[in-house]
């Protein structure tokens, strides 16, 4: 048995039907005797470059455990799934116990009021679509912000050190 991290970018147009995708993909995993340890649903993010004319993508991270022989079978199924615009299988030693470092775009907008004013209409739309998800994310916001603080502190430390070096 081997631990894997499956990173998926889902077609943002189909973000509403994400529940259908969960059931179908989790069935695919269980059919190949993979067990899901954790799922990180990051949500929609802007892509660094457009993939198949998509500028946004719905990021999912599955942490699974299973037999290496079945990986190719799952990958071939993923290739022919139109909902998935990009995927990545990674062998990992341990399933991380901390929350994903990635954040949904809308969360960033909350922190930066300048950007939020620009895209208020969009934001409302996503709120309606992802009403359920937002409730979930609200719970995790505290944890994430704590993490952010840690990373920011680290950054500050690093910068201090850099200036010393100079």
């Amino acid at each position, binding site marked *: 048995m081997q631990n894997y991290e499956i990173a998926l970018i889902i077609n943002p147009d189909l973000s509403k039907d994400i529940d259908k995708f969960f059931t179908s993909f989790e069935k695919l995993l269980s059919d190949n005797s993979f067990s899901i340890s954790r799922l990180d649903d990051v949500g929609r993010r802007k892509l660094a470059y457009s993939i198949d004319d998509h500028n946004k993508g719905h990021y999912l991270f599955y942490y699974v455990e299973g037999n290496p022989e079945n990986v190719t079978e799952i990958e071939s199924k993923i290739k022919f799934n139109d909902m998935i615009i990009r995927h*990545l299988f990674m062998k990992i030693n341990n399933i991380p116990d901390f929350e994903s470092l*990635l954040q949904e775009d809308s969360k960033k907008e909350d922190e930066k009021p300048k950007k939020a004013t620009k895209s208020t209409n969009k934001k409302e739309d996503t709120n309606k679509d992802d009403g359920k998800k937002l409730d979930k994310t609200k719970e995790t916001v505290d944890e994430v912000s704590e993490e952010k603080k840690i990373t920011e502190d680290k950054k500050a430390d690093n910068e201090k050190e850099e200036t010393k070096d100079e």
Partner: protein
Amino acid sequence: MSNLDSKFINYKNIELLKRYITETGKIVPGRVSGVTSSQQRKITKAIKVARYMALLPYTDSHK
């Protein structure tokens, strides 16, 4: 730099990785970034994975 914990050099930690790419999206060479060679290798790999997952750009002239 002890703060560059190997746990944090991950392709999803784009806030960290962003500091090791130039404005044009190139990876900053180890002699410039000043990190240890082992950290530089991990950063380089993480950046390349992050590029594949569209978390970081390959270049500044996409589209």
